[in-house]
C-alpha cells in the first residue's frame, strides 16, 4: 500500500512538471508585426502589386479598397546600426494591399511578411474622402468593429488626399500613427481640433443615423496637418464635403468642446488683436412653436488679451478692453454665421449637435422629426449671442 502511494505521488509530480513549462504557446513580441495604423484608399493596385500580380499573385476579388497597414518594429540590419546612419532608416513599415474584404487584406499581409500581424495596438484609421464618398463607412469599418483584438479606442480620421500619404513621415524616428494619435490631445491648445472620434463613439453615431464630422488631414512632403473636418451624411454614411479650419473653429464653439485656443481679429486700423480662450461655455436652447423649430445659441467665454499690435492702445484702459471685446465678439459671430450657413445652406446637415439638444429638451418633438432631421434642421432658425470677457492681459500692461 505504501509503495502504491509512492507511485501515485511520483506520477502526480510528473504531471506537475508538465504545468511548469510556462507558456509554450507564447510568441515573442519582437517577432510580431504590431499593426499601429491603417489607411483606406480607393482600390488601386500599386506598382509593386501590379508586378506581383503579373507574376501570378491573384485571387478572386474586386479592387475596391487599398489598405495600407502600418506596422512596427522594422527589422534593422546590423551594418545600419553600426554606421549610425539614421538617415534612411524609418521606424515603420507600410504595406499596401488591394482588394475588397478588409479582413482578407489583413490576412493577405501574412503572404508577404513573415512576422504575423496583430491588431491590439491599432491607434488610427485614416480614410480617404474619395473612398468614403463612394462607400458606406459602416462597410469599411465592420471588420474593425467586430475584431476581438482591435480595440474600439482606435481613432478615425478623414484624409483629403490619399490616406496612405497621411501615414508617411519625413521626420526620422517618428511613427506617423503615434504622431496622429497624440496630436489629437492638443485640443487644449487649438480649437481647430475636434474632440477625438473613437470607434466606440462612431459606432453609436452611425447607428443613430445622424450626420457627423471627422477630423480632416492634409499632407504634403511627408508632413501631415489637421485641416478642417470631413462631413459625413448620416443617411448614407458617406462623405459629402469638408468644413475649412475657420468653420471647424465655429463648430467647436457651437458644440461647446473648447478647451483652449485663440480668436484672432484685426482692429479698425488693421492691426492684429488676439484673444486667448481661458474658458468657454455654450448653451443651446431649443424652441418649438407648432412645426417651427428654432435654436438659440448663447456663448460665454473668459479670456486674456494676449496680443495687440497697436501699441498706442493700452490694456490698462477699460475703454480699450471693451472695444477689443467688441472686435472679438464680432469675429466670433462671423465665424458662427459662416459655420451655420455651411451646415444649413450648403451641405444641409446638422453636425453641430442641434438634434441632440432637441432630443434632450423636447423628446416628443424629436421623435416626429428624427427621420428627416437634416432637412428639418436646414429650415430652422438659429440665433446666437456671444459674450466674451477679457479678464486680464498677462504679464505686460503696456
Amino acid at each position, binding site marked *: 500500500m505504501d509503495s502504491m502511494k509512492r507511485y501515485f505521488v511520483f506520477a502526480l509530480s510528473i504531471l506537475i512538471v508538465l504545468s511548469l513549462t510556462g507558456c509554450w*504557446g507564447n510568441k515573442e513580441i519582437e517577432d510580431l508585426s504590431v499593426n499601429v495604423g491603417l489607411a483606406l484608399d480607393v482600390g488601386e493596385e500599386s506598382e509593386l502589386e501590379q508586378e506581383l500580380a503579373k507574376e501570378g499573385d491573384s485571387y478572386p476579388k474586386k479592387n475596391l479598397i487599398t489598405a495600407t497597414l502600418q506596422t512596427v518594429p522594422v527589422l534593422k540590419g546590423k551594418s545600419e546600426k553600426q554606421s549610425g546612419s539614421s538617415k534612411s532608416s524609418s521606424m515603420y513599415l507600410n504595406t499596401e494591399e488591394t482588394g475588397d474584404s478588409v479582413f482578407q487584406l489583413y490576412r493577405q499581409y501574412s503572404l508577404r511578411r513573415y512576422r504575423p500581424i496583430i491588431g491590439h495596438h491599432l491607434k488610427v484609421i485614416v480614410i480617404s474622402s474619395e473612398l468614403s464618398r463612394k462607400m458606406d463607412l459602416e462597410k469599411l469599418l465592420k471588420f474593425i*468593429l467586430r475584431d*476581438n483584438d482591435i*480595440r*474600439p*479606442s482606435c481613432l478615425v480620421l478623414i484624409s483629403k488626399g490619399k490616406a496612405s500619404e497621411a501615414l508617411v513621415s519625413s521626420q526620422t524616428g517618428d511613427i506617423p500613427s503615434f504622431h496622429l494619435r497624440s496630436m489629437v490631445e492638443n485640443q487644449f491648445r487649438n480649437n481647430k481640433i475636434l474632440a477625438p472620434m*473613437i*470607434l*466606440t*463613439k462612431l*459606432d*453609436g*453615431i452611425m*447607428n*443613430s443615423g445622424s450626420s457627423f464630422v471627422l477630423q480632416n488631414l492634409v499632407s504634403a512632403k511627408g508632413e501631415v496637418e489637421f485641416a478642417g473636418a470631413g462631413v459625413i451624411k448620416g443617411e448614407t454614411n458617406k462623405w459629402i464635403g469638408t468644413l475649412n479650419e475657420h468653420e471647424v473653429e465655429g463648430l467647436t464653439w457651437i458644440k461647446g468642446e473648447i478647451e483652449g485656443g485663440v480668436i484672432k481679429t484685426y482692429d479698425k486700423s488693421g492691426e492684429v488683436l488676439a484673444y486667448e480662450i481661458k474658458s468657454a461655455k455654450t448653451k443651446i436652447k431649443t424652441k418649438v412653436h407648432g412645426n417651427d423649430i428654432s435654436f438659440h445659441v448663447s456663448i460665454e467665454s473668459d479670456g486674456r488679451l494676449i496680443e495687440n499690435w497697436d501699441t498706442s492702445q493700452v490694456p490698462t484702459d477699460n475703454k480699450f478692453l471693451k472695444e477689443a471685446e467688441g472686435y472679438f465678439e464680432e469675429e466670433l459671430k462671423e465665424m458662427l454665421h459662416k459655420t451655420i450657413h455651411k451646415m444649413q445652406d450648403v451641405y444641409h446637415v446638422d453636425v453641430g449637435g442641434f438634434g*441632440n439638444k432637441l*432630443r*434632450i*429638451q423636447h*423628446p*416628443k418633438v424629436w*421623435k416626429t422629426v428624427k427621420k428627416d432631421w437634416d432637412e428639418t434642421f436646414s429650415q430652422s432658425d438659429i440665433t446666437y449671442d456671444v459674450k466674451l470677457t477679457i479678464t486680464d492681459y498677462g504679464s505686460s500692461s503696456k
Partner: protein
Amino acid sequence: MFTRTDDKITTTQTVVIISCYMLGSGVLTLPRTLTERVKTADGWISLIVGGLIVMLAGICIVKLCQQYPGKTIYQFVQEIVGSWIGSCLSTLMILYFVAISAFQIRVMAEVTKLYLLEGTPMWVIVMFFMWIGLYLITSGINSMARLFEIILPITIVVLLICMFLSSKIFEIDNLRPVLGEGILPVLRGLRSTVFVFIGYEIMFILPAFMQHPKKGVKAMIIGTSIPLVMYMITYIMVVGALSVDGVVRSTWPTLDLMRSFEITGLLFERFEFFLLVIWIMQIFSTFTITFYAASMGLAQLSKRNIQPIMYGLIPIIFIVAMLPKNMNEVFDFGDFIGSVSIYLFGLLPVVLLLITKIFKKGALKEDG
C-alpha cells in the same frame, strides 16, 4: 440524511453569498439587454424598480423559510403541497440550478475565448473551472462563504476603479433626457432586469444554514442592494460612453467600454483584462453556489449523501453547458432561464406563503 450542524453561516456571510450569486455573467451584457428593451437611456430606473421587486420576492421567500426553521425548500415544500407536487417542484428547481451553473460556465468560456485565451479549447477552460468549483463545494457552504467574503470586496473595488477610469469618455448627454418618453420604457425594461437579479432564490436554502435566521430579511435587502448599486454604476457608465445607439450594437458592452480607453502612466494601460479576471471570479462564485444548490437538492430529495452527487453532476453540467451551438443559442438559453426564473421564483414563494398562511400547516407543526 444530509444534515451538518457545524456548517452554519453568519448574517454577513449570507449577504455576501446573495451578492456573489447575483453578480454573475449578467453584468457583461446588462447594458445591451436592458437598452434593447427600454430603447431609451432610462434603464437605470428599471434597475431600481426591478431591484425593489426582487427584494419583495426575496422577502416573501425568507418569510416562508422562517416558518420552517432549519429546513431548505427541498425539505419543506413537500410539507406544504404534498409529496408529489413537492418532489416535482424540487426537481424543477434542481434543473433550474443546473441550467444556471451551465449557462454561467458557458458565458465565462465564451468571453475568455474571445478576449483572453483565444487558442485554448473551450472544454479545457470549462473543465478546470468545474474541477476547482467541485473542490470548493465539497467542503460545504462555510468554505464557500469564506471564499466569497474575499472575492466580493475585490470585485467591488476593481469594478469601481474601472468604471471611474472610464469617465474620460463619459458624456452626460447620452443619458438624457430622463423619462423623455414617459414611464413606459422603464416598465418594458423590467423583464431584463430580473435576469441580472437572479440569485434571490438562494434564500430558499440559505436560511436553513443561518446562525440567526431571523435576520434573513435584512440579509436579503443588503444582499440585493450591493449588486443593485454595482449594476446601476455599470449601466450609467456604459450607456454614458457608448450611447443608446452604440450599446445595442455591442455584444459585450461592458467589456467594450473597458476597451475604449487607455490610461497611460498608471502602471496598467488597459483595464478590460483586469475587469475580466475579476469577473471570472464572480462567475465562479455564481457557478459554485448554483452547483451546490443543485447537488443539495438532489441529496435531500433522494436522501443520499451529497458528495457522490456533486461528482455525478459534473458531466451533466458540462453537457448542458456545451449544448448551445452558437452565441445566439447561448443568449437564448440565458433568456429562457430568465423567464423560468420569473415564473418559478416570482410566483412560487407567494403561492406557497399563501398556502401556509391559510392552512397554517407547517407553522402549527413547528410550534406544537
